[in-house]
């Protein structure tokens, strides 16, 4: 299949997935007890106040009609207005999305840059002390909840040792966030920890599998040194499954950001989602979920495209 027709097909698939996501989330949120009116107007609101609020917001119309209103607005870039912050959702999200993307991307890059060599090192030193130590640390990092890890990081590296600030830089623009790089260290480390744990495991397994492949023996028989075989052949072959996993890992990264942002008071989407969830702010929640869904779909799409570039067999439909 040619690259352009492949891309068109994949993008269409992605759009279908996103539409399905909006339907599911829309349905789920409306199934919650109380509905949005109760959430906004508080427990003291009378039935009449609720009815008039619902009428004003179009919430008394049948659900499918509400959904299509929503979809129509969406196509015009309108995500509705926040019930509680009295601002357009699109504006709320666009202010914060970039910051969340920066935080997750930094965590992902730091995580991968450490996890991939660690996993390869473990595979080469299989069942040696180094392997056992990293394996143990990985399981500890993986099984520690992010909020707990964040608290420990703050206690140790901010309170006991005053190296890093415990709070992320505040401000509306990216420049303001980057004004104090030191303050980004702890949130990024907290976000990267589980990523290092998970991806060093993947990389270890993939490397071990490839080290036992016949082509490694062929390269050895041709007089190639172990180190050059590792980097020239095994590395690339082991990377393809890991890249595929990375696509699926995008929602996990966003989930992690939710906790990390709340913990370090980082003004991103995670914090917005958190406050919106607490106040049943439907339009904001829907907007956030939609953005995360798009990011996930785009993430897997990118992973597939990168895999297609690295592995020529994917393009030929042989792998």
């Amino acid at each position: 299949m040619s690259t352009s027709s492949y891309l068109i097909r994949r993008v269409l698939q992605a759009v279908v997935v996103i539409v399905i996501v909006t339907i599911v989330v829309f349905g789920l949120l409306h199934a919650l007890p109380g509905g949005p009116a109760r959430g906004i107007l508080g427990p003291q609101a009378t039935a009449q106040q609720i009815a008039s609020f619902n009428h004003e917001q179009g919430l008394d119309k049948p659900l499918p009609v509400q959904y299509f209103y929503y979809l129509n607005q969406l196509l015009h870039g309108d995500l509705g207005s926040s019930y509680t912050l009295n601002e357009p959702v699109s504006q709320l999200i666009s202010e914060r999305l970039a910051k969340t993307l920066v935080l997750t991307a930094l965590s992902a890059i730091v995580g991968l840059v450490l996890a991939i060599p660690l996993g390869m090192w473990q595979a080469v030193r299989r069942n040696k002390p180094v392997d056992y130590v990293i394996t143990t640390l990985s399981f500890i990092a993986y099984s520690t909840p992010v909020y707990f890890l964040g608290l420990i990081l703050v206690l140790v590296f901010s309170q006991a040792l005053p190296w890093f600030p415990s709070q992320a830089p505040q401000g509306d623009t990216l420049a303001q966030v980057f004004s104090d790089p030191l303050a980004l260290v702890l949130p990024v480390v907290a976000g990267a920890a589980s990523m290092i744990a998970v991806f060093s495991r993947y990389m270890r397994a993939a490397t071990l599998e490839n080290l036992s492949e016949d082509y490694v023996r062929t390269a050895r028989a041709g007089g190639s040194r172990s180190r050059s075989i590792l980097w020239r052949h095994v590395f690339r072959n082991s990377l393809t499954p890991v890249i595929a996993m990375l696509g699926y890992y995008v929602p996990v990264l966003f989930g992690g950001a939710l906790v990390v942002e709340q913990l370090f008071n980082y003004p991103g989407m995670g914090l917005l989602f958190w406050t919106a969830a607490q106040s049943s702010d439907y339009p904001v929640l829907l907007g956030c979920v939609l953005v995360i869904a798009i990011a996930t779909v785009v993430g897997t799409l990118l992973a597939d495209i990168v895999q297609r570039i690295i592995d020529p067999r994917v393009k030929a439909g042989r792998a």
Partner: protein
Amino acid sequence: MTATQGTAAPSAGPILELDDLGVIFTTETGEVPAVRGVSLHVSPGETLALVGESGSGKSTIALAAMGLLAGNARATGCATIAGTQVVGAHEADLVALRGRTVSMVFQEPATALDPLTRIGKQIAEVIRNHREVSAKDAATEAVELLRRVGIPEPEMRATAYPFQLSGGQRQRVVIAMAIANEPALLIADEPTTALDVTVQAEILDLLRRLAVETGTGVLLVTHNMGVVADFADRVAVMYHGEIVETGAVEDVLLRPSHDYTKRLLAAVPRLSVAEAGRPAAPAATTRPDTEPVVELRDISVVFGRGKGAVRALDGVSLAVHAGETLGLVGESGSGKSTASRVALGLIPPTSGTVSLFGTDLAGTRSRARRALRAGIGVVLQDPVASLDARMTVGECIAEPLRVHRRKLSAKDRQSKVAAVLDRVRLPRELARRAPRELSGGQRQRVSLARALVLEPRLLVADEPTSALDVSVQEAVLDVISELQDELGFACLFVSHDLAVVQHFAQRVVVMRAGRVEEQGATGATLLHPETDYTRRLLAAVPVPDPVIQRGRRAERLATLAAGRTGAQG
């Protein structure tokens, strides 16, 4: 290619010398000696064939000579390549040796190359491992090597990935890598086992030509006596990790002295060939006039749709009658397995009709079709994968009874299993064992027992002995034909091995690219084929007699050359 490396220069002594070589594997159950006290030598320009059945340790010797043994293996004794001791050598010394003085060609061309690296680059890597050559010059040299091993359009092919090449072409690439630095010794471990016979003949021709051109010594590891007769100067026969007999190829293959060699050679199915100049005997193609047990009429099968559609079968007609064995032969991709699956009702034909026991399969519903299937037994190629590892042997054999004879009591089932184990000449106690505890030949007999437990009218055997050693193959085939005499089932026997089919089948169907090339009585068709394709196929089969094989090879090459000049002129 420069001749300045000096490694290929003829020296006085042998290029490879093994003296009292031993290899011990450390396993969970203790130390297992795989090779004991092996001594042999290969001189420059000569080919020594190391033959033996699976587990005899011949591949282990090849790997030990390269210093490529697995981590749990330990070598003792001496292995010297061009004066360098390999056993116990430092990795750095071995790296200098590998790919330069000694090279290796492996069995499985499908997995021997890095799937993500272009083949030209993989060849260039071997060149640059040992010589100070610029990347550009190495790339040019890689193209030259591809040309030398007979890859068409080498400039274009150098940028291809392994998956874009056929199995034979991949093996040529592996050979190009092996000869990149003109090694003094080439170790070839079953280099043609995974290839079709015509491709095998081409690869053997290529290896022979390269060895003669450069005076390279060759250690050829193989189980195929035909390949030995075709290629080797001397032969060493291995049995249980030891060499039992060594000698010139004519002596060992024609006048074996050791009992094991005699038994091994007796078990090799020999392709009978028509003597030149003798007129074809009148073919006795009298077909049984009973109604066929299974009949395929003008079957076509198309996989996929549109541009990517593949026509796997094209107008195939064949029939198998009660009590007879029909051999279905052809090279990989010829459609022989697809045809057998159509006969089983597993693949619905795109057009044409299949009648099984006189009933048209297309007109049957699933229940009736299942009842028909109770009359078919199946034996497949892989003795490991075709038995459920979580069941006991008895449960495996009883499974068809559970499906098709539901009213049978557990006791009756057991006695039927015991009876069928007797029939395939396996001890009844085996019923309680797990398949993994059995040898390959025993497992294939369990598959056969499972296929026969319902007393089928049709047995479909798809390469049932391809994964087995010759001595085991003989035993399994004997059991099938004895049971056929006893039970009278029809047998559709799919195989790539013409010699086996010649001995085992009464009639043969030769397939090529989804079509029936020709069919007839085995004796007539395989001795006096009517089509060029069958003739070429037969000519490519090496026979385990070095004298006859030499003549056959010359004849085959002459025919090919005549065909080429004929096509040009």
